[in-house]
């Protein structure tokens, strides 16, 4: 995949989301309104992501995240959160179809060594959905 721009290490889109990330969790108090939570990655590899989703009528209407990792990990999570929120939310069945490749394409590509960062994003989302589904089963 082609990497745009020569003045930076990543694409313009990665740069934008890395420098001005969207939808990250600003305040722990916000969590109580969310009904799905996922955490993936590990510190050893240098990437760790947490994701909170707010589901109403099987539709994700809001998403928040926190990420420890490199620029591409931060940008991937930010981009994913935008993808979910951009059309006033996303049905769970559609959200489950998002792949690392989709995130990467929207980011204008990632260097091959960084591909795992985008995969981590969709894994965090799946983990949050799974958590929501388990909780709603119990309820």
């Amino acid at each position, binding site marked *: 995949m082609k990497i745009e721009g020569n003045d930076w*290490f990543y694409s313009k889109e990665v740069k934008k989301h890395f420098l001005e990330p969207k939808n*990250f969790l600003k305040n722990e108090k916000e969590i109580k309104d969310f009904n799905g939570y996922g955490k993936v990655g590990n*510190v050893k590899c*240098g990437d760790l992501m947490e994701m909170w989703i707010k589901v109403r009528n099987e539709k994700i209407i809001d998403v928040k995240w*926190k990420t*420890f990792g*490199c620029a591409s990990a*931060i940008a991937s999570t930010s981009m994913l959160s935008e993808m979910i929120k951009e059309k006033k939310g996303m049905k769970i069945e559609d959200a489950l179809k998002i792949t690392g490749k989709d995130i990467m394409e929207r980011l204008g590509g990632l260097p091959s060594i*960084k591909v795992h960062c985008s995969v981590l994003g969709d894994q965090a989302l799946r983990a949050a959905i799974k958590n929501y589904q388990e909780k709603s089963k119990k309820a």
Partner: protein
Amino acid sequence: MKEIYLDYSATTPIRKEVLKEALPYFSEKFGNPSSFHSKGLETKKAMQNARQKIAKIMHCKPEEIIFTGSGTESINLALKGIAFKTILEGKRGIFITQRTEHHAVLETLHWLEKLGFSIIYAKIDETGKIDLEYLKKILGENKGKVLLTTIMYANNEIGTIQLIKKIAELCHANETILHTDACQGAEYLNTNTQELGIDMMTINGSKVYSFKGTGILYKKQGVKLEPLIHGGAHEFGLRAGTENVPGIVALAKALELAEKEKKKERARVTKLRDYLIKKIEKEIPQVLLNGDRTQRLPNNVNISFKGIEGESALLRLNEKGIRVSTGSACSSQSLDPSHVLIAIGRNHETAHGSIRFSLGKDTTKKEIDYTIKELKKTINFLRKISPLWKKNKEVKK
């Protein structure tokens, strides 16, 4: 936006005076030093002159200076040169080193293992300093079998300075010799080979405000090496190939300037270094200095910031015009963080969160103040979005 370069340990710019000295040797004085006419004699003399200048600085004989194409090549020549000599005698032997060495040492020795040589790693403490008692013990236990001990003068990542004079004494008392990688040390530390009692020393141009692609191996008379590159009889038969005359002239000038200004520059940079460390420790919570506080290169600051990943910090600082480096895996081509930080016992999170600021000739207090201001903002932001950041938690090493 003004650029603040704090990565002098990666490489330095070429000093004006150095460039000026070298320029005539690119076009006007282009002769091959091996040519038997005036044009050749001109560059032959320039090379002799350069070799003499360096020998004077390093307190050795001119014929003990071998010019190479890089610091890495110089290290390869020292280690493989001894190994190949040993192979030709039908023997093998032991190399002693330690785990925070540059890859040029570690990978070369690792490869030599395939040829039947073995490596013993000396122990280091959590600041990266050699455990001298343990070194003494392994040198004693392997007396007669150790071909060479190679211990760096100062570490490129954490700045820890080794007591190489003492280490050389231990080696000699146990009938072996010492090579030291002095690439980071040459600009600021004593390179008097007699005083230090060193048998081989590596220096390169790109760390002393001279050319990339230039290096030196000081090799004490009597130390026997096989060449890596065969061909003509250049460099006393140890490195064939027409000499890089401008690079050699430049290197001599650079080392001469470094030597002249060493004392003053060391004091100036040390002051800035300690100011930067003090300010970071005061203004940013949960940080950890990597390396030793005093037995440290004057220009090295390496600090781990709890809860953040180094590449993110590096790139955000880069946006503010500040150029630094990190021990995080993400900035390398592998998924492992700095082998140096792991070797001194840092955990992965701490290693991933490390930033190295390496100061240099043009670094000013104003630049340091701006760096601290931007660093504070960068770390605060990255901690805000980090799942690992919990306030008031104790810093784990």
